[in-house]
């Protein structure tokens, strides 16, 4: 949500894109950049054996709005920050076309260890006051430096099992799926004893595709609803809970309360309880569930989700 400021600010969005990632001057494959999650994942690369990562970034702001308003000396500052290591780096970007800036931010190994946020501010002179922030990047990026092994904990997993054979799951032996949680992991169990479930979900035939997609997204929506309710029980302030619970809330809160900051959204949960926001939970769960189009996609997205977690 935009704050109200005592001077004119930009109404349109400032969009940041990661163009290139270089690890010790070697360009990494484009696959490390996820447009959808606004993240850069370095999981596959050796966690200790590097000294600097250089990110090539591009920023676009609505040009017509910049032209029409009383801002002077408009400049863009890219900012990389990690709270855990108390490190923040600001870099002034170069203007290319009007409304476009590009720049490079370097992250040094010794100054970072986990998740680094990439964001930035559009700054201008307004009413003779220099250095006014007239916009911030709408959707910041995250650079995740942790190695894969370290991030497997605290994740969401998917497992096939025959519920009838599992003493823990026998109580729901006729259900197609269920969710179990511990502090460290949330597991989506799919019932291989449920007639036809596996055949449909793992089918690669075009004819099965509509059924498969509907089924996968129903399971996913049910799963996200269950996980949200469980995670929300662990909210006790304005900070995200640890582990997978924080991950679930971070993914779903923007859809539950699109106009709230994360802190305010957490406050809403505390004030209204999960019961009071049930329609919103269903909406956000359905939205999460639409993202992957098949079970393979669902599983992949969960694995990715697990890796995002701190």
């Amino acid at each position: 949500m935009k704050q109200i400021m005592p001077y004119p600010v930009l109404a349109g969005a400032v969009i940041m894109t990661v163009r290139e990632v270089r690890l010790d001057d070697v360009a990494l494959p484009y696959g490390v950049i996820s447009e959808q999650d606004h993240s850069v994942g370095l999981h596959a690369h050796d966690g200790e054996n590097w000294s600097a990562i250089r990110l090539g970034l591009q920023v676009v702001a609505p040009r017509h709005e910049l032209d029409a308003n009383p801002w002077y000396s408009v400049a863009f500052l890219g900012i990389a920050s990690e709270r855990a290591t108390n490190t923040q780096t600001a870099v002034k970007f170069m203007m290319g076309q009007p409304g476009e800036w590009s720049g490079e931010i370097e992250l040094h190994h010794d100054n970072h260890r986990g998740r680094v946020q990439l964001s930035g501010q559009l700054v201008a002179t307004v009413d003779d006051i220099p250095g006014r922030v007239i916009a911030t990047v709408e959707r910041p990026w995250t650079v995740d430096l942790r190695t894969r092994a370290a991030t497997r904990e605290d994740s969401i997993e998917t497992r096939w099992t025959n519920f009838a054979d599992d003493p823990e799951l026998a109580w729901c032996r006729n259900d197609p799926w269920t969710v179990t949680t511990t502090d460290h992991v949330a597991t989506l169990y799919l019932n291989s004893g449920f007639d036809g479930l596996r055949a449909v979900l793992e089918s690669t035939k075009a004819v099965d595709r509509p059924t498969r997609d509907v089924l996968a997204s129903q399971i996913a929506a049910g799963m996200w609803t269950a996980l949200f309710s469980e995670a929300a029980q662990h909210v006790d302030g304005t900070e995200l809970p640890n582990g997978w619970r924080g991950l679930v809330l971070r993914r779903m809160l923007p859809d539950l309360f699109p106009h709230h900051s994360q802190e305010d959204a957490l406050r809403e949960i505390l004030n209204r309880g999960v019961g009071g926001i049930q329609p919103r939970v269903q909406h956000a769960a359905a939205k999460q569930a639409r993202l992957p189009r098949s079970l393979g996609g669902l599983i992949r997205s969960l694995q990715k989700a697990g890796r995002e977690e701190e």
Partner: protein
Amino acid sequence: MSTKLGLLPDESAAAFLTSGVLENSEPLPFSAIDRAAEPARWDAEPIRQLVNEAMKRFTPAERTSADAWVAPVLHSTLRLTRREAADSRIWNYLAVRLAHDYVYWRHLSRGNPPTVSRVRFSGPFHSQAFARLWWAAELFRDGSDYLPVVVACGNQDILNTVLRLDVILHRPTAQAIVRLLHTGIVRTGRQVNALARAANTAGSTLSYEALAPDNFRDPDAYRDWIEDMDNDLVSYDSLPIGPSDGTTRATSVVALTTLFRQIYAESPGAGEDTDIVPSM
């Protein structure tokens, strides 16, 4: 005890910090702690020595004054990268295993029974007994100069309030706040808090990074300083010398000092001479 430091996970530290331990009426189970800790590469002896020295130099009544002496000496004795210092396990080990006596000495409250808050042993960087001083030194030093650290740690409100604010991650902002404290523009805890609040609020509409750009911090120079550890004897009687990884841009500090002075003068809470502490 090993001659090296260890890394003690948060969960293990939490298990050892029983209420009896926090009240200093029960001993810490050292052999169990040693089993729970992983070995680390830093020597334990220099840290133990500096803690002994602190408790010798300052009487229990002067314990808050010890912070300004300990912070620079700790920083230059325990040479960590920020990446390493962000790992809570090393701080847990110092407080729970190597120097628990210092934590009691420095942080035992006057309540009945007297107790130490759990976060002084294992907690966020701005609360934990050793992490707060190390990070204060790291965030308030000006390149190799620890003098601003001594000024900052001489005021408990800098440690208790300002240290946790995002704005001080910008070095010229941190240096400007210290300068106002050093020149006596702000003196009391209440004034420091008013200044910090005003600077933090103004920071949501003004970009200090744009108004006061900083110099580059040289990671290689910092690395060299870490590797020189074995050749340097850290002085107790004069200020140690920190890493020469680049000073804060002086013109930026001046610009922000002027700006903060103005913002502070216009803020509520400015100009009061004494701390009025309401009775609790």
